[in-house]
């Protein structure tokens, strides 16, 4: 519970920080239509947008959804501000970065059961492959999960298009019964 509270505090701080920067500069000619409040709302909605999952195991196919929160990114591909927290510009990821993330997942819809929540925390390395990653980027990651069937480690590979907003990731958890392989259509904006 403490972790969730700190996450909320950090997100609120990041958004307030961005809002304060914007207010300080508002008389400087910006004709922007996106206010800090709108940006915070869109960012929050974007985090709530789930990525659909295809959950597969031995003799088992199901569905599910996954969310992600990104408390820390260190980007080695950008010219400035390598550290981003929660609010992550696409370039900070796809130009090459190391990120730490947390993911709640819900697996469902299989005829033989396997429904339930999975909590996952992990790290991911992004590598740009074309157009500084705007056109194509890849990732390699590892995570630790907790689920009703137990806990364990997982490996993951991913590929991303369209400024890393759309991607495919495949997570392999050999010991997670009926959910050994989870493929996700990753949808992510900031």
């Amino acid at each position: 519970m403490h972790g969730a509270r700190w996450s909320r505090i950090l997100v609120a701080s990041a958004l307030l920080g961005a809002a304060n920067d914007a207010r300080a500069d508002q008389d400087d000619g910006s004709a922007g239509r996106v206010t800090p409040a709108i940006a915070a709302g869109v960012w929050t909605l974007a985090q709530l947008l789930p990525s659909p999952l295809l959950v597969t195991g031995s003799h088992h196919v199901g569905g599910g959804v996954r969310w992600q929160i990104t408390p820390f990114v260190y980007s080695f591909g950008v010219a400035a501000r390598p550290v981003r927290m929660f609010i992550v510009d696409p370039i900070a990821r796809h130009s090459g970065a190391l990120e730490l993330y947390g993911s709640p997942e819900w697996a469902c819809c299989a005829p033989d059961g396997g429904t339930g929540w999975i909590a996952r925390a992990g790290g991911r390395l992004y590598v740009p492959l074309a157009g500084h990653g705007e056109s194509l980027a890849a990732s390699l990651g590892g995570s630790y999960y907790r689920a009703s069937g137990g806990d364990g480690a997982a490996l993951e590979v991913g590929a991303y298009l369209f400024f890393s907003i759309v991607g495919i990731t495949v997570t392999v958890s050999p010991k997670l019964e009926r959910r050994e392989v989870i493929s996700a259509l990753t949808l992510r904006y900031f």
Partner: protein
Amino acid sequence: MTRSPFAFPVVAFSLVVAVSGCGFFGRVLQRNLAVPREPRKVQNKIHDPRRPGARLAVLWIGHATALVQMDDAFVLTDPVFTRTVGAFSPRLVEPGLDPADLPPLRAVVISHTHFDHLSYDSLDMIEQKTPIVLLPPGARSSLPRYAFESRELDRWESYEAGGLRVTAIPVQHVGGRWGIDQAWHTRAFTGYVFEYHGLSVYFGGDTAFDKDKFAAARDHFPKLDVALLPICPTEPRDFMRRTHMDTIEALDAFALLGASRMIPIHFDTFINSDDRPGDCPRLLRDHMRERNLDDTRVVILEVGEERVLMAR
């Protein structure tokens, strides 16, 4: 110059938006999808833009990309050489100069981080041509790493090297690159003035009309030899007014700046509005006639055309 093979999701999304007819954005997407696969060729393309007999010359490469020669110093503005911008908006006409044909540059300036002004792939093409890229405040956080130095200039701040001085000047536009980041990149847009050997050139980048800002630029730089000013996009006017000048406002800005000449930029290269190709220069010519401005004062270049404005 080939279409990205990774553009499928973008095209699919564009089709959905376009077919659904989502107002202005749907119309722009529909028109972009109808653009011919190959851009129009530039006739008699220049391969050596250096003009030894010129003190001041400008080559319009397209959109906001221009090569400015001031004696032996070359400055490039908002370099975009790619086949598309933002993955879905194709060029109507090829770049007026191949990046390989660029002379060694003293500096490259970026006015803001929108896709049609900050092109990562285009910077790759000119990475070895320039020692430095200048950007507005906050923009370096949207810039990948390159071999050249990158530096942000705040309003009225200058960069000086080898007799060239580049000063950032205030304009009226909007920052950000991916949408919601305009909420915190509230200063990431600028214009510039280049000074070298007594010559001075104004580059407006992308700006709406703001009388005070143009007057302030004139106060700081009372003898501008030429002003590169955007004249498009203009329609729908209610939507564009806050961020873009129309042709009348561009001529008003030219008058306020007191520059000797004006070169219009930012038109007929990409589709980003309801304007039809040719609309903006036609309207500009109409308003020039009303104001008795001839083509020695307002020099409308074709993409790929170079004009010597002052000879040695």
